[in-house]
């Protein structure tokens, strides 16, 4: 997982669903705060896959147009073999699973 800039922080564009889920967080002010929020996310959601944090300038998010969420699959040669449509509409785990199954039968 690549932890990127918040999608719906409370001080920018909060969603009702965030309030309902009790995920009410303001935008991290620096890399340290982003790391703290990322840590809380991984712990509370029980994410077990390796997670890295995008640097505060969001260079990785920009390179991959990853905000607010997005899926990619990179093959063994380092080429993009699957690119989802931008989230949240394009965030389809089934598509990634199918692409992965094709790549690693």
């Amino acid at each position, binding site marked *: 997982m690549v932890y990127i800039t918040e999608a719906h922080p409370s001080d920018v*564009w909060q969603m009702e669903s965030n309030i309902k889920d009790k995920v009410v967080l303001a935008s991290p002010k620096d890399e340290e705060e982003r790391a703290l929020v990322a840590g809380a996310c991984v712990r509370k959601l029980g994410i077990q896959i390796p997670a890295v944090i995008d640097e505060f300038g969001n260079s990785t998010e920009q390179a991959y147009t990853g905000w607010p969420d997005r899926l990619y699959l990179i093959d063994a040669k*380092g080429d*993009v073999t699957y690119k989802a449509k931008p989230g949240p509409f394009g965030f389809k785990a089934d598509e990634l699973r199918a692409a992965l199954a094709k790549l690693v039968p």
Partner: protein
Amino acid sequence: MYCCIRVSVLVRGFGRSLEANTLSTKSTSVKRILVRAFVAIALVWVLACGALYEIMRQPPEKFARFMARIPGPVAFLVLPFETLWTHARAGALHVGDSAPDFSLMKLDKRASVQLSSFTAQRRPVALIFGSYT
């Protein structure tokens, strides 16, 4: 007597014709107003789509700040949000392109991970971009 009847019929006939003409003019005028209203609404809709598309192409925070001020149903129900979003956020990276390399810190900040290190080991990588909110 005959003359009077003839004149009366002519006057009545003229009246009916005038009434029909007035109705026809009214109907044409209503049609014109409806067409103009439709064209105006369509124009506003197209302009709103263009404006939203441009805003979607802005950096995420700028886009999010704008969206926070827009009542939800306007953007999501009145405008084709998903279609515009899919195009605006398509990105420059395509399937078959070489994945941009990065070196990012792990959550514990004890080490960093470089994407190309997986390529060196001939291992595929799934990237899941996201955040808590």
